């Protein structure tokens, strides 16, 4: 009987002991945290809260900035089968010779078409030979190829994924040719999509130079074309750190203010930055590059479809350079949208954006904040 008593009592006693220890632990931790609480930190937190910035969960991770209302309507209507607003918008960009908007819209539509192209087929059938539909078709196939490949590094990508990627991209080559044939003579848009085919298939440098000539003959400072070409010249695709830097510096050098070409030296730096410290981001050259981009942004058309992308980049580098006031200014203009470089490359883009934003807000001088 005694042994039974022990058997029953021992677990009870041990359980009670465990509960007691947990309680004690909680009490001690609470005490330590309480004594650590810093009045400055509390005030800074209150200031951040007063700016009414959005939580990480409320950041839009697909877009760099809100879409113009007409574009939002067209993008919502297309998958439902109503492709005409999109077609009309795309025709309007061609009529206005607004190639920045044309490729921006094409990119958005192509992304939709890569998931489901029923509406695009309807468009193609009712308007055979439509340049806009051909453009979206070709770019959509490129997007589809990247969906098959996945966004992981080559080592983490399976043979099956690569096989599908290459097959789909190879199909896109003919579609690009068709888009070029149908496009207005001075439209660089089809070549922008072709750069991505060149990147994925690893086409030779001469092919890239040919594409680049076709583009610059039509639009010498096209943002998306330059962004795409810079990707081609990056070390992770078909070039090297040197070729990417050289390309970016050349693109920025002759460009008029407001063309946003000054973003590319920063992107080239970001793409090849392997260091763990921020020292490389605080060199005199980097300060100058960020200043140049700030001036470029100030001179740009406020309706430029890529303006927000450059602001994201600026916010990041201003933060790294401890230029809190200027960083916060950019962060406040961007808040709510994080679908851009550099956040797009991070594991949790919204969290990273919010962390840097809040830190900038904490150290920014209150007066400068009001000025923005």
């Amino acid at each position, binding site marked *: 009987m005694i042994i039974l008593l022990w058997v029953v009592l021992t677990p009870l006693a041990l359980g009670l002991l465990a509960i007691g220890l947990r309680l004690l632990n909680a009490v001690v931790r609470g005490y330590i945290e309480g004594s650590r609480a810093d009045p400055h930190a509390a005030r800074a937190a209150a200031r951040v809260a007063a700016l009414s910035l959005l939580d990480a969960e409320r950041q839009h991770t697909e877009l760099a900035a809100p879409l113009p209302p007409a574009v939002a309507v067209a993008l919502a209507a297309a998958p439902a089968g109503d492709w005409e607003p999109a077609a009309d918008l795309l025709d309007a960009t061609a009529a206005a010779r607004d190639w920045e908007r044309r490729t921006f819209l094409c990119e958005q539509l192509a992304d939709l078409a890569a998931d489901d192209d029923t509406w695009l087929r309807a468009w193609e059938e009712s308007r055979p030979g439509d340049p806009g539909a051909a453009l979206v078709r070709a770019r959509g196939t490129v997007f589809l190829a990247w969906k098959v490949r996945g966004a992981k590094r080559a080592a983490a990508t399976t043979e099956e994924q690569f096989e599908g990627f290459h*097959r789909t991209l190879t199909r896109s080559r003919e579609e690009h040719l068709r888009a070029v044939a149908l496009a207005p003579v001075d439209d660089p848009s089809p070549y922008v999509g072709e750069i991505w085919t060149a990147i994925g298939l690893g086409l030779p440098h001469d092919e890239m130079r040919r594409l680049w000539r076709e583009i610059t003959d039509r639009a010498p400072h096209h943002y998306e074309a330059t962004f795409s070409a810079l990707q081609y010249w990056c070390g992770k695709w078909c070039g090297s750190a040197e070729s990417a830097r050289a390309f970016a510096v050349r693109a920025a050098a002759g460009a008029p203010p407001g063309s946003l070409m000054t973003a590319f030296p920063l992107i080239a730096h970001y793409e090849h930055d392997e260091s763990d410290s921020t020292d490389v981001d605080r060199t005199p050259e980097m300060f100058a590059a960020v200043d140049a981009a700030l001036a470029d942004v100030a001179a740009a058309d406020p309706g430029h479809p890529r303006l927000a992308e450059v602001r994201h980049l600026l916010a990041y580098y201003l933060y790294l350079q401890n230029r809190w006031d200027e960083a916060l200014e950019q962060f406040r203009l961007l808040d709510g949208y994080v679908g851009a470089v550099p956040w797009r490359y991070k594991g949790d883009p919204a969290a990273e954006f919010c962390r840097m934003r809040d830190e900038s807000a904490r150290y920014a001088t209150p007066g400068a904040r009001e000025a923005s």
Partner: protein
Amino acid sequence: MGATLRALRALVLIAGFHLLGLVLLCALGAVDWAAYRWAPAGWALKFYVVSFLLAVPVVRGMLLLRTPRDEEVAGIPVTDADEPRLWAAVRELAERVGTRGPDEIRLTADMNAAVTEEARLLGLIGGTRRLYLGLPLVAGLSDAQLRAVLAHELGHYGNSDTRLTGITERCRVHVARTVDRFEEKSGQTIAKERARQERKSAKRVAKGKSAREVDTTGVGFTYRAMARIYTAYGRFCMRATQSGSRRQELAADLGAARIAGRDATASALRALPVLDSAHEFYLSSYATLGVEFGMLPPRGEVFGGVRRLLDARAEELAGLWEALPDEPASPYDSHPPTAERVAVLEALTDDGRGAEEARPAFGLFTSPEAVLIDVEEATLAPEALLMRRLDWPDLVHEAMTARYVQDAEPVREALGPAAADAEPAALLRDFLDAVDAGTAWDVVGRLPRSDEAAAATGRAAREFARSSLRRELARLTTAVLAADGRARWQLSWSDPASLHLPDGYAAALPAALDAAITDRPDTEPLRKLLAG
């Protein structure tokens, strides 16, 4: 540490083993006594039974006073009359090492050589000495290298005092066997428990209740716990004797270098790990390529074929010699890291014997082919001996073809019952009909998919299905072309087997496959190629 001290330590260790057994028996007895005193009779009975079961392996371990006989390694004994040159060489080596030659030489199918001795009376009296010599090892070494390996192995018996290491060895063997016995028991117990639960579960299902997960955690725990105690002791023994045994290995290496030459010994050491992995690769990729389909290479080639691989890949393998493992295989390995052994040897002054002509070690045999056949017959399983024997090129072609036909099984299943008994050619026709009818996507949907393919949605999912369709069509087409002899799998000893297609097919086939997998498929080109 002198020989006497080493022997003393070994004796202490083995005494410890028996002491451990006694302590465990006492502990079990104490538990029983406690159960007798306090527990209800039913419980006490259970305690008696459990402790008796646990005591059995302990007592058996303690009673094994003799070193257990060698595990019977499958191999054939060769007499002096069979292989006079081999025997002469081994005797000469033994004499130069300063030890007694082996009483038996057994040829085996391993990439290994070893000398064992059935020592008696705590290792004070020597017993039968056996040299186990693996023919694949002979195939991979030069005459001088083989001499170095054998001199090293015999070197362990060079001084009579090393025979006392038999005691250490016995300690290790005792512990290992006792652990094995406990683990075997715990395995049996788990299997029994599983069977019991499954029977119970089957009854539940029969009664219309849901089956319970079979859970065997905890069962066999007592056995495993006992095994753990012995394992811990075994580790202690190993640690205690390790430095000594590593020193002996180095001494045996130096002895081998004196007899067989510095360069031969060092290069043999470098070659052994490389040969080992080459042999494994040979067995899995060549010798047993057709085993699944009941095919083997010609007689004498199952183990002898490794020579062809070693010849064809000599350069590649020589490159691997440079990279030596510089860590011991395990913390309990009795050998120092190979890199260290090679470094010690290569630091010796040049004895000028590196320039001697390298003759293959098989030169020591009267008829290498005959012994290869004999060893094959002695070591292969009876069912393997009944398998069809094919020449290497035919074996590769037939085995690869059979594999491709076999790999088309999922498609056969996915095509439904109509395709159940179809020949590959008919199966491919059915598949192409499905492509034409637009039902191929459903067929592909029933095939096993990769994680990436399963996660894909929308048009990306269709692209993965397209990849799958192309893969299956290509596989089945290859199988059909190879089965009727139009395509042929080519054997290569230096590269993977490659498919040789008839003229024009290599260019036309990819295009025909591409045409069959589009959204508006055209199977005509592929059908024409197959008919052609």
